[in-house]
C-alpha cells in the first residue's frame, strides 16, 4: 500500500489512474503509516504533515494526539484513554447530569430533538462525548484568558491584529480608521469564535488542522490568520465608503462561506509569513 502511494506520482496512464483511485490516496497513506507505528508517533512529523491539512478519515485520531489527549506512545494509549473516559463519566454522575451532550446544545436545535442513540450505538456515543470533552478542555487551556472576565486574551489578540494590519496594509488600516470602524467591532467574533462563524464546518476543520499543528496555534497564529483573512479583502473593503456598507461587509458580507480547503491553505501560508515577521518583535506592532 505504501509502495503504491510512493509511486503514484510517477505512474501515468488511464489504467494506473483507475487503480490509484481504488487505493487510499497518498496523503492518507502517509498518515496511516505515521499513526500505525508500534512505538511512539513522532509528534514533529505528525505536526509537519498535519499542518497542510489532515484527511477526514484520520482527523479524529490526529486531533486527539495533537491535543495531547491521546498519548503518542502506543503502549500507554489504551490505558490512558480508558481512564480518562471513565473519569469523565464519573464526574458526570457526581454532578448529577444525564448522559449525552450535556447542555452543550441550545434548545431547539435539530439534534436535541433527535434520538441520537437510535442512530449510533451508545458505547460509540459515550466515547465520542468524553473524547470531545477532553479535547475541548485541552484546546481551551491554551486560550484560557479568552473567556475570563473582560476577556483579556481576546482584547490582546484584537490589539495585535490592529498592529499587524497597520504594518502590512497601511491603506486598509487607515481606511478602517477614517470610516470609524474599530477592529473590535468585527474581530471580536473572529477571535471569540475562532473563525467558526466565518467558514463552513468542514473548512473550519481544515483551518484548525493547521492551528493544532502550529506552536501557539489558537493563541498566536490565529491573529495572523485573521490579518491574512482581512487583508485578503483589502481592495473591496477600501472601495467601500459608506460606514454601514463597510460594517455589513465585515460582519457578514465576506464570501468566506464559499471558501474551500485550498483558500484556507493560502490563508495559512500568508499567516505563517506574517507570524515569522512579527512574532517575538512586538515593538514593531506598537
Amino acid at each position: 500500500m505504501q509502495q503504491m502511494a510512493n509511486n503514484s506520482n510517477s505512474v501515468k496512464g488511464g489504467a494506473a489512474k483507475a487503480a490509484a483511485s481504488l487505493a487510499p490516496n497518498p496523503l492518507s497513506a502517509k498518515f496511516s503509516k505515521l499513526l500505525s507505528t508500534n512505538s511512539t508517533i513522532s509528534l514533529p512529523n505528525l505536526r509537519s504533515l498535519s499542518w497542510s491539512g489532515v484527511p477526514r478519515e484520520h482527523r479524529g485520531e490526529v486531533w486527539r494526539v495533537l491535543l495531547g489527549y491521546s498519548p503518542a506512545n502506543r503502549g500507554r494509549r489504551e490505558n490512558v484513554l480508558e481512564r480518562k473516559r471513565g473519569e469523565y463519566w464519573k464526574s458526570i454522575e457526581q454532578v448529577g447530569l444525564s448522559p449525552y451532550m450535556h447542555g452543550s446544545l441550545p434548545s431547539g436545535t435539530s439534534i436535541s430533538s433527535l434520538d441520537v442513540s437510535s442512530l449510533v450505538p451508545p458505547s460509540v456515543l459515550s466515547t465520542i462525548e468524553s473524547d470531545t470533552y477532553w479535547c475541548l478542555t485541552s484546546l481551551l487551556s491554551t486560550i484560557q484568558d479568552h473567556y475570563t472576565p473582560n476577556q483579556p486574551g481576546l482584547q490582546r489578540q484584537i490589539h495585535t491584529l490592529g498592529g499587524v494590519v497597520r504594518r502590512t496594509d497601511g491603506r486598509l488600516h487607515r481606511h478602517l480608521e477614517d470610516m470609524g470602524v474599530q477592529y473590535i467591532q468585527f474581530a471580536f467574533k473572529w477571535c471569540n469564535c475562532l473563525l467558526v462563524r466565518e467558514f463552513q464546518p468542514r473548512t473550519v476543520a481544515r483551518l484548525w488542522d493547521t492551528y493544532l499543528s502550529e506552536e501557539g496555534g489558537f493563541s498566536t497564529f490565529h491573529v495572523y490568520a485573521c490579518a491574512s483573512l482581512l487583508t485578503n479583502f483589502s481592495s473591496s473593503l477600501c472601495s467601500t465608503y459608506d460606514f454601514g456598507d463597510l460594517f455589513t461587509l465585515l460582519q457578514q458580507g465576506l464570501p468566506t462561506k464559499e471558501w474551500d480547503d485550498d483558500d484556507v491553505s493560502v490563508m495559512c501560508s500568508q499567516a505563517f509569513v506574517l507570524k515569522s515577521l512579527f512574532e517575538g518583535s512586538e515593538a514593531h506592532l506598537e
Partner: protein
Amino acid sequence: MSTRVEEEYDYLFKVVLIGDSGVGKSNLLSRFTRNEFNLESKSTIGVEFATKSIQAEGKTIKAQIWDTAGQERYRAITSAYYRGAVGALLVYDISKHGTFENVERWLKELRDHAEANIVVMLVGNKSDLKNIRGVETDEAMSFAEQHNLAFIETSALDSTGVDTAFQRILTEIYRLMSRRNMAAEEGVGGVGKGQSIELGEGKKGGKKCC
C-alpha cells in the same frame, strides 16, 4: 455593494437593541430590516448591525440599528456601543418572567452608559407564545408608565408589532429632536439637558460628497 447609489435621508438615528440573551433581539432586527426570521438563529457575538430607512412626518429617517449580545460575559465589550445612541429597544420575552425582571438591570446599564435623553421603548417580544405567557400585558404596561417608557408587544415570528415598534420609536426621536431644535432656534436657554441639540442630527439631503 460599494457602488450602489447612496440613498437620500434627512436624519440618521442610532438605535440599540438590548435585553437578555434569547429574547429575540436579532430576529426583531432581521424581521424589521430584511423581513426575515430564523427559528434557529445563533446567539449574537459582540455586535451586529443593520440599517433601514422609514418615513416619519414627511422626513426620511435612516435607522442604524445595533444588535448587541445579551450575555453577561460580553457586556464589557458592548458598553462602547451605546455611544451616540438616541434610542433603545429594551426587549424581554413575554413567556419568560425572568427576562422581564432583568429589565431594571438593563435600565441601569442605559443610565450608566447611554446619553441621558435616550428614548427607551420597552418591548415584550414573542407575543405569539400566548399560551405560555409569563408576563401579563398590564404588568408590563404599568412598569413602563412608572419608568416613563414607551411600551409595545411584538412577535418577530409572525411580524406583529415589529414595524410599529420601530416606526414609533423613530418618530418619537424625531419629534423630540425637532422640539429641541425649535427651542434652540427660539433662543430658549437651558435646552433639554444641555448637550442634546446635535444629538442624532443626520446629514441633510443625503450623504454629502467628500
